[in-house]
C-alpha cells in the first residue's frame, strides 16, 4: 500500500426527489448521500458499512458516475469523473468496475456466461478479436471456473458460480478500482467463504483498490484495511480497521457492534439491545441524524450537525459527545 490517493471524494451529495400528485412535483427529498468526503489510497480496501437505506449503494454508484451527483466532486487518479466527455468516460470505465450483490440479476439470462465475460473486452477493444476466446478462458481460470463452462447459460449455475462469472467480467478490463456492493450477501455461508477468499486473492494479485460495501460487520472486518460507517447519507466514523473494531467512538457504531448476533454461545448478550428504529429517510431529525436514538444526545445535537472531525490520527468521528 502507498500513501498515494487513487480516489478523492469531496462534498459528494446525491438526492432523490419523492414525487407525488398529478404533476409529479417533488414533495420531499431523500438525501441518500449528503456531503460525503473520503479518500481511498491506491491498493487499499476501504470497507463501507451501514444498514439498508443508509446510502451506501447510492454512494458506490455515484462514484462510478452510474447516476448523477447533486453536488460535490469525485476525482479518480486526479481526473474529475463528472466533467468527462463520453469518450473519456468510457476510457475511465475500464479502470473502475463494480460487482453487484445479486448474481442472478447481474447476468443476462439469454447470453452465455462466456459471452458475458467477453463483452467488456469487445467494448473496450482489449486484445485482438481472435485472441479473446483464450482471454475469456484465462479469466475463467483466474476466478476458479473451468473454461469448458463458458458455453453454458447463467441458469445452469449456482449462486456462487454466477458470482465468480460476475467477478471475471469485472476484472476483464484489469481495473484499478473495484467497487464490491454486498458481493456475498445473497450467498450461503459455505459459498461466501469461497468468494471472499477469491476476492482477497485477486486484490493481492491484481493490486486492486477496493471499495467494499456491506451491512455485515464481520465480513467487512475480514476484508478491509480501513472502515467507514455510514448513517443516512453521512459518514459518521472512519478509522483503520483495528482501531474501529477495538475502539468504536460514535454511538451508532457502538449500537451496531452491540447488535451483531455473535456466533458463539459463550458470548450471549444479556443486556437489552440498543433501542430505537431507523428514521424516515425523507424526514430526518435536525442536527445530528442519530440523535433520536442516541443515548448521549444533548441540546447541541439538535441544533447543529456534528462535522466529521479528527479524534486521533486515522480516526475521524462525527459526534459532539465524542
Amino acid at each position, binding site marked *: 500500500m502507498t500513501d498515494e490517493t487513487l480516489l478523492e471524494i469531496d462534498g459528494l451529495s446525491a438526492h432523490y426527489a419523492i414525487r407525488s400528485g398529478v404533476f409529479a412535483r417533488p414533495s420531499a427529498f431523500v438525501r441518500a448521500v449528503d456531503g460525503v468526503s473520503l479518500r481511498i489510497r491506491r491498493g487499499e480496501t476501504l470497507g463501507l458499512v451501514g*444498514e*439498508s437505506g443508509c446510502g451506501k449503494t447510492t454512494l458506490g454508484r455515484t462514484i462510478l458516475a452510474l447516476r448523477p451527483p447533486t453536488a460535490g466532486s469525485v476525482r479518480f487518479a486526479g481526473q474529475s469523473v463528472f466533467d468527462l466527455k463520453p469518450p473519456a468516460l468510457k476510457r475511465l470505465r475500464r479502470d473502475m468496475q463494480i460487482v453487484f450483490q445479486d448474481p442472478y440479476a447481474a447476468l443476462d439470462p439469454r447470453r452465455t456466461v462466456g459471452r458475458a465475460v467477453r463483452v467488456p473486452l469487445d467494448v473496450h477493444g482489449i486484445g485482438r478479436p481472435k485472441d479473446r476466446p483464450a482471454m475469456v478462458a484465462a479469466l475463467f481460470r483466474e476466478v476458479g471456473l473451468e473454461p469448458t463452462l463458458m458455453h453454458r447459460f447463467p441458469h445452469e449455475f*449456482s449462486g*456462487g*458460480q454466477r458470482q465468480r462469472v460476475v467477478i471475471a467480467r469485472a476484472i476483464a478490463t484489469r481495473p484499478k478500482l473495484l467497487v464490491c456492493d454486498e458481493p456475498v450477501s445473497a450467498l*450461503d*455461508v*459455505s*459459498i*461466501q*467463504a*469461497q468468494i*471472499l*477468499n477469491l476476492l*482477497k486473492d485477486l486484490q493481492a494479485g491484481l493490486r486492486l483498490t477496493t471499495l467494499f460495501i456491506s*451491512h455485515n*460487520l*464481520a*465480513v467487512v*472486518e*475480514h476484508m478491509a484495511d480501513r472502515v467507514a460507517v455510514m448513517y443516512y447519507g453521512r459518514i459518521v466514523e472512519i478509522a483503520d480497521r483495528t482501531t474501529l*473494531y477495538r475502539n468504536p467512538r460514535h454511538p451508532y457504531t457502538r*449500537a*451496531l*457492534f*452491540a*447488535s*451483531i*448476533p*455473535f*456466533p*458463539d*454461545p*459463550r*458470548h*450471549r*448478550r444479556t443486556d*437489552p*439491545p*440498543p*433501542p*430505537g*428504529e*431507523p428514521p424516515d429517510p425523507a424526514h430526518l431529525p435536525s442536527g445530528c441524524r442519530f440523535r433520536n436514538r442516541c443515548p448521549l444526545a444533548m441540546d447541541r445535537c439538535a441544533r447543529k450537525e456534528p462535522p466529521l472531525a479528527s479524534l486521533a490520527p486515522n480516526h475521524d468521528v462525527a459526534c459532539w459527545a465524542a
Partner: protein
Amino acid sequence: MTCSTRGAAEPLLRIEALRTEFPTNAGPVRAVDGLDLTIGSGEILGLVGESGCGKTVTALSVLGLVDRPGRVTGGAIRFGETDLLALPPARMAAIRGERIAMIFQQPRGSLNPVMRIGSQIAEQFIRRRALGRAEAWARAVALLRAVGIPAPESGARAYPHEISGGQAQRVMIAIALALEPQLLIADEPTTALDVTVQAQVLALLRERCRTLGTALMLVTHDLGVVAQLADRVTVMYAGHAVETAPVASLFARPMHPYTQGLLAAIPRPGENRERLAEIPGSVALATQTGCRFAARCAERTRLHLDRCENEMPPLVPRPDGGMVRCWAAQS
C-alpha cells in the same frame, strides 16, 4: 442456559423419518428426506442449514401447509399425543394458530394490507375466544404494548403500510402468540431486518416465548442468531438432520464435517484470519445412496473411508445426548 434435559420426558414435537416430495418433470424431488428432530416443551430449537436444505419445507410440513402438488409421503409428526399427519384438514386448521403458530421472513406479506393491525389481532379473540369487539380490541392493544409498539392505543389503528418492517415483525409476533400456542415456528424471522432491529426482535422473541412457556422452532441460516437464542440446534443438510446437540457443545465440539465446515467458514468479529475455511463444491441432490455430504467432505478423503459413498450413515449418539450422522465421527 437451559440444557437438553428440558424436554427429556416426552417431547412436545417429534418428527421421525419425514419425507416431503414435489413432483417435477424429472421425477419427484425430495425436499425433506428422512428428517428426525424433537422439540421439548418451552425449548428453543435452532434449525439451521443453507438454502435448499429443506428447513422451510420441514416447517410447512409440520403445519400441514405444503403447497400442492408437493406432499408429505412418509414418516411421522407427533405433536403431544396427536399424529398431525393423520388429522383431517379441519382439525389441522383448528390446531394452527391455537396450539402451533408461525411467523415468516416477510412480515408485511403476512399481514392483511387493508385491515388495521389491531383488528388483525382482535379478530382471533373474536373468532376463537368468543370475546366481544371492545374486549378483543383491548386485548389487542395490550399485546401490542407487550411487543413494544410505541403508543399502542393509536398504533393499533395503523395499517400495515404505515409501520416499519421491524414494527411489522413485532405485530406478527403479537398475532402468532395471541392465543398462547405451545409451539411457535419462526422461519428466518429477522433475515429481512437491519442488524440493530434484528437484535431487538430476537430479544423480544426470546422474552415472549419464555414468558408464555412457548416452544420455538427457529429456522435460520444464521449461526449467530442460533448461538444467541437456541437451547439446542439441529443442522440440516440435503433434506435431513446431520447433527443435533445442545448449543454450547455443538459450537464447542462439532462432530459432523459439515457442521465443522460451517463454523470454520464464518468470519468472526475480532478474529483475524487471512483466509476463511472453504467447503468445496456445492450442495448435491438428496438422491445418492451414501452420505449426502461425501463429495464435499475432507474427512472422508483424509481417513480413506470407502463406505461413505455407498452406505448412508445412521444417526448415532454424541456424548452430550445429541446425535450425529457420520461414519468418520464413529471411527
